[in-house]
């Protein structure tokens, strides 16, 4: 199976090299290692044969706008006395392939500039007094080294790069000794004819419909993906020299483009049985496990063999069946194990990692270019940018100063206050973790002590990270802020120790107050996250009115309200037998749900640290 995957990866390299820009590129999800190296080497060899510039140009992680897009070439400008444009990496790579390492960590600003150029095939440069439109057709190989499911390349890039390859399932000793025997690089027809050819292949109406419906079944909504799949099918047909696009071309194209984007398994399939869930637990383990990869990939084929209950006389349905089967078989294993757990959460809030939101500042953080200003109050002068600003004025100022009759050598650079540029930095803001602890009678009976212990452990961790914490307790008729956001460990501990238990569960109130606190924090520039520790059994409504049914409704409404915001949250279900109500509410909130029926304080705190 991994050999088939590898061949598919090589095929992608061929398609990519034949026309880098029209497919956007590929997201290569693999950790650094021999497999990835070998694929890159293969790509490089192909690129060399196709006459592309090698070695492939890399875009460093923290690239500045000046290097990425271009700007005024200071030295050449001063020397030649004429403005000289220095084009950036993007414009220099017209017709080339760019490599974007650590794509899962690429800044959203860099990702959106790359996407902008990909979309338009040209780069509009409006920088440093230069206004230019540069041709800019390139393909991107985004190296995604993410391990966790949510550590992925930016969604903009995911959408715009046609191919998503996952090489993590391939172990290097699975690879053939030498791929020359498998795909003969030299035997493939010259690149130029392929491109000219591909445009003459047109999909039939049934094939268009098949692509669209298959994508629908797999929950792929992006129209770009459909477009790429159609184009890939045409390319495959052209590469084989076929007289038309056959259904196997279509299946392969869908396997390459649509399957890796799947967000659900086809609805025709019965929901996973109990046994599947157990297997999932195994799948969650690292892929190094002996034969896990084979298991994972083969699994979806089983249901596909049974014909779908659709009108099989219809050609569309027929094509679609075969295509869908191929598509399902090609869903990468890591994605599949996620999908088997149920539909992916659409409302993805995590931008990844434990770090806070970004904030511009003048003092510390990652440099983000410069801005006009005075180098005072801690802001530091950016010498190069100041010189750049002053450069165009030199001739004018020399004339002016000559009339002032101040003796100056001709080498003097005239700089005035208005030229000053100061550096700007981007820093991560602090996070605020809000603990909403259920202290009601039902919870107190079982778990209050553990919850308190867990919060204390988390507090210690927050203290290390210099995060702020706040504690909300809810019991009786309402929720109260036990501890407003603070960094004081001692105060937090004391407030927890004094936290009384007993009474009803006013869940709705707790959610509202937590949300309010989080929104306030957002306004102050903090990045809030909420941790709910509760059994999720609301029995007090929003206005302190008892009644389980109303309380549940109120809690759901509150949950939806929080769910519409961008606040990250974690829901720890502490009841001894987790029930559906808690999970439902957690789903509405859009939070990560963790049922921990028998967890100790330590386990709870570890769960929080893992997820938030």
């Amino acid at each position, binding site marked *: 199976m991994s050999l088939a995957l590898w061949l598919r990866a090589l095929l992608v390299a061929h398609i990519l090299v034949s026309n880098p820009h029209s497919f956007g590129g590929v997201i290569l999800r693999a950790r650094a290692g021999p497999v990835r190296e070998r694929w890159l080497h293969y790509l490089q060899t192909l690129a060399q044969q196709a006459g592309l510039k090698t070695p492939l140009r890399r875009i460093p992680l923290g690239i500045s706008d000046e290097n990425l897009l271009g700007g005024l070439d200071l030295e050449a400008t001063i020397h030649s006395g004429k403005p000289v444009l220095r084009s950036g990496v993007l414009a220099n790579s017209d017709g080339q392939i760019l490599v974007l390492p650590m794509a899962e960590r690429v800044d959203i600003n860099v990702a959106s500039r790359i996407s902008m150029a990909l979309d338009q095939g040209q780069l509009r440069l*409006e920088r440093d007094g230069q206004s230019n439109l540069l041709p800019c057709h390139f393909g991107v190989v985004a190296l995604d080294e993410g391990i966790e499911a949510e550590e992925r390349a930016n969604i*903009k890039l995911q959408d715009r790069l046609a191919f998503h390859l996952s090489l993590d399932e391939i172990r290097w000793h699975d690879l053939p000794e030498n791929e020359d025997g498998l795909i003969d690089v030299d035997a493939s027809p010259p690149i130029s004819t392929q491109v000219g050819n591909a445009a003459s292949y047109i999909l039939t109406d049934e094939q268009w419909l098949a692509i669209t419906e298959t994508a629908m079944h797999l929950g792929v*909504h992006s129209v770009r993906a459909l477009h790429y799949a159609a184009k890939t099918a045409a390319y495959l047909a052209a590469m084989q020299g076929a007289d038309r696009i056959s259904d196997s071309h279509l299946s392969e194209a869908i396997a390459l483009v649509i399957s890796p984007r799947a967000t659900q398994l086809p609805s025709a399939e019965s929901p996973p049985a109990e046994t599947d869930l157990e297997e999932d637990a195994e799948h969650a383990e690292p892929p190094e496990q002996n034969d896990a990869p084979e298991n994972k990939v083969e699994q979806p084929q089983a249901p596909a063999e049974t014909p779908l209950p659709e009108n099989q006389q219809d050609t569309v349905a027929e094509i679609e069946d075969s295509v869908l089967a191929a598509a399902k078989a090609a869903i990468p294993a890591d994605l599949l194990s996620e999908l088997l757990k149920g539909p992916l959460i659409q409302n993805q809030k995590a931008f990844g990692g434990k770090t806070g939101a970004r904030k511009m500042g003048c003092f510390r953080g990652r440099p983000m270019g410069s801005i006009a200003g005075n180098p005072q109050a801690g802001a530091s002068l950016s010498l190069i940018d100041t010189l750049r600003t002053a450069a165009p004025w030199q001739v004018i100022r020399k004339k002016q100063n000559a009339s002032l009759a101040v003796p100056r050598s001709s080498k003097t650079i005239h700089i005035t206050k208005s030229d000053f540029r100061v550096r700007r930095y981007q820093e991560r803001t602090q996070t605020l973790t809000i603990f909403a602890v259920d202290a009601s009678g039902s919870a107190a009976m079982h778990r209050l002590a553990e919850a308190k212990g867990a919060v204390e452990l988390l507090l210690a961790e927050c203290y290390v990270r210099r995060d702020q914490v706040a504690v909300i307790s809810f019991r009786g008729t309402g929720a109260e802020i036990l501890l407003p956001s603070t960094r004081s460990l001692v105060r937090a501990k004391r407030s927890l120790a004094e936290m009384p238990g007993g009474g009803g569960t006013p869940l709705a109130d707790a959610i509202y107050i937590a949300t309010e606190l989080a929104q306030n924090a957002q306004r102050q520039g903090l990045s809030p996250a909420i941790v709910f520790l509760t059994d999720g059994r609301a029995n007090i409504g929003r206005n302190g009115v008892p009644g389980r049914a109303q309380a549940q409704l109120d809690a759901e409404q509150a949950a939806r309200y929080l769910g519409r915001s961008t606040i990250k949250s974690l829901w720890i279900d502490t009841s001894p037998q987790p029930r559906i109500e808690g999970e439902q509410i957690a789903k509405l909130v859009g939070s990560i749900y963790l049922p921990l029926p028998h967890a100790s304080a330590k386990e709870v705190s570890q769960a929080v640290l893992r997820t938030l």
Partner: protein
Amino acid sequence: MARYYPFSAIVGQEDMKRAILVAALEPAIGGVLVMGDRGTGKSTAVRALAALLPPMDAVADCPYGCDPLAPAGLCFYCDGLRANLQALNASQIAAGKKGKPVKLKTIKRNVPVVDLPLGATEDRVVGALDIEKALTLGEKAFDPGLLARANRGFLYIDEVNLLDDHLVDLLIDVAASGENVVEREGLSIRHPAKFVLVGSGNPEEGELRPQLLDRFGLAVEVKTPTSMQERVTIIKRRDAFERNSIAFLAEWVEQEEAIRKALELARKKLPHIKVDDKLLEQASTLCSHLGTDGLRGELTLLRAARAVAALAGKNKATLEDLQAIAIPALQHRLRRNPLDDSSSAVRIERTLAEVFPA
């Protein structure tokens, strides 16, 4: 010159198309913001707009493309041209020559649709010293920026939610005053910069600051079409366009022309569209029920309703027009209600049904 996908060939997304046309028709509305899913044709629609707009009269040499009929005092450049002309005419009369006085030279120009790309620096946006002239001639000349180019046209910002804060501040200021002021070391220039702000973006990547949100007259939300037929049509058309854009454009010439005609007709009609007291009352009832802040929403709502009526070829704006544009005109002005978890659009729909039962 890149060829853009034709406006009329965009499948579905009627709300977005209507909002864009309304904003193009009535600049006083204050532009349109298109937020939504990836790959829904946001940028395509905005770029397609450029091809639809009829050319306008402009002063030939003016870098800001001023209207020849505009009053004096708005643009220093046109004022200079006018002064020269006056002197010329006066000298001709003094010389006893007969004939008509020389007028400002005007040309037909396409309505500018200017892109503000990410990563643009401030000096290119507002304009700065002309580097070429400064270095070679030692002259202080002003090199107009994007705001100057966008005068009387559209300023399009893709990924508006990712724009640098200091640029956003600057844009807010200029969009509100319709004038760009550059003050720098002997360069002291103010020039007209009246443009329709068009923004697009994906809300998942960051929210827009409320101050900027409020500058947009209309806001539409676009979603990926879910109907199979629509999706098939979209990719087929897109494919045909990429294969042969010239042939594809030729196929759509008639439809494009129809929209262009409708726009032109609507432009003539717009000043004469009547709004009666009843509609005014209905607009303010709706706004007060929704609790929108300030008069801005109400004003935009009425202006947009008039534009909708003009586009439909009517002489009078009715409740129907108001209802058609109520969501785009108001949805970004509502306060979030903690007790109501439904989206702004749903709340407006509900209120419409309550206030104006059919």
